[in-house]
């Protein structure tokens, strides 16, 4: 084991980790923005609302993230219409392509988590809200969604970790995230074991810190619940 190589390349790896965090943060924000409308559409009784949401969720949960990234990055570049469009300055950047793919992917999973949570809100609470004279929108805003968010919290924490791990695929479209940086260093140093282990430790560190912070957050958000630890 050659520790010198690890130490010498640590600044580069940490720089990569910075890009990883950036990609994950943008991806999560985009995913959340997609997930809420998708989940609400998915629980609608009207078919023209739930069918598109169903198709979106089904496609992005049923195909590998790697395929999705390549579709966005290399796939869209195939069309001259896309290359000539106003969107090209964004789509030509691997950074934004990765974020678009990540947001679409995590958005689909998060929508499914939210859908489950909305359906898990006790019927009695919804009925009580209606009995109080609340409209459907009002009870959705005041009763159902706040309740659903709390139910969804643990599952969403897992989804964030999955997103963090999935972000390693950004390295396949030339981005120098933690994995991309590691692979580039290895191509020069021929020290795969050392560099990958260092990268793995940084990933584990990021997961660990996130899990601790999230646990704090969960506790805070559940402190009014009787019996919650």
């Amino acid at each position, binding site marked *: 084991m050659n520790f010198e190589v690890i130490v010498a390349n640590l600044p580069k790896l940490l720089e990569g980790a910075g890009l990883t965090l950036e990609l994950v943060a943008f991806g999560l924000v985009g995913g959340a923005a997609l997930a809420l409308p998708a989940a609400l559409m998915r629980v609608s009784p009207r078919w023209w609302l739930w069918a598109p949401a169903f198709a979106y969720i089904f496609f992005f949960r049923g*195909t590998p993230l790697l395929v999705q990234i390549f579709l966005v990055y*290399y796939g869209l570049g195939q069309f001259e219409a896309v290359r000539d469009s106003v969107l090209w300055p964004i789509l030509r950047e691997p950074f934004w392509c990765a974020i678009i793919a990540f947001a679409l992917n995590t958005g689909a999973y998060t929508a499914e988590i939210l859908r489950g949570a909305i359906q898990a809100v006790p019927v009695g609470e919804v009925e009580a809200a209606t009995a109080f004279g609340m409209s459907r929108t009002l009870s959705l805003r005041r009763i159902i969604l706040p309740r659903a968010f709390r139910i969804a919290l643990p599952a969403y924490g897992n989804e964030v970790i999955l997103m963090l791990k999935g972000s390693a695929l950004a390295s396949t479209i030339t981005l120098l995230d933690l994995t991309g940086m590691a692979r580039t260093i290895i191509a020069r140093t021929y020290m795969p074991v050392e560099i990958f282990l260092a990268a793995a430790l940084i990933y584990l560190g990021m997961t660990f810190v996130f899990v601790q912070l999230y646990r704090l957050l969960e506790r805070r958000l559940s402190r009014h619940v009787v019996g919650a630890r």
Partner: protein
Amino acid sequence: MIDLAGFGDQLLLGAAMTVQLAVAALIVGLVLGLLGATARLSGFAPARALAGAYTTVVRGLPELIVVLIIYFGASRLLTTAAAALGYDGFVELSPFAAGVIALGLTFGAYATEVFRGAILAIPKGQVEAAHAFGMGRWLTFRRIVLPQVWRIALPGLGNLFLVLLKDTSLVSVIGLEELMRKTQIAVGFTRAPFTFYLTAAVLYLLMTMIAMAALHRGERAAARGMPRLRG
């Protein structure tokens, strides 16, 4: 509309390789998962710690990193290990073997938790009853615990298999010619990335749907003999 430019057969061959890889990794992962769960529930503290470390570490790592570490790192480890055993050769790992090990390790880490939950969900009274009947520990495990573990764990394992099926695409990065790699070759040849990646996506969706249908049947079969709730 979709012109596969003669690459249809190649993609199907790739899909077949994807299925082989997924099934092989599933078998490795199930074995690891059962071992892991047994270790986590054992009275032997080092075994518990080892299994705990295994699931924490592997579940905290990107699957791509696991694949790359196994592929690039394992041949060095194997060569060193072989040298320690007196074999002076160079041991290498094929992309398929590396993929099976990496995906099997990942599946096993998550399956450990699923199996552990399932074993804990079996009422203690049943095990005690079996002991009262004079069954030994192994017999109790085989006759009473294991059949029920399958039933309880199947939905969780099913979800893990769907994840595994999609993770097989990562092995393309180390050159195994499964569906994703074949697609990339076709893209290189035809320069039509959208067409081919979309085709690959549809093939993955089909495989997912077939797996889901099979799981559904499996769950029904595992639950036969259970009182069914009717609404």
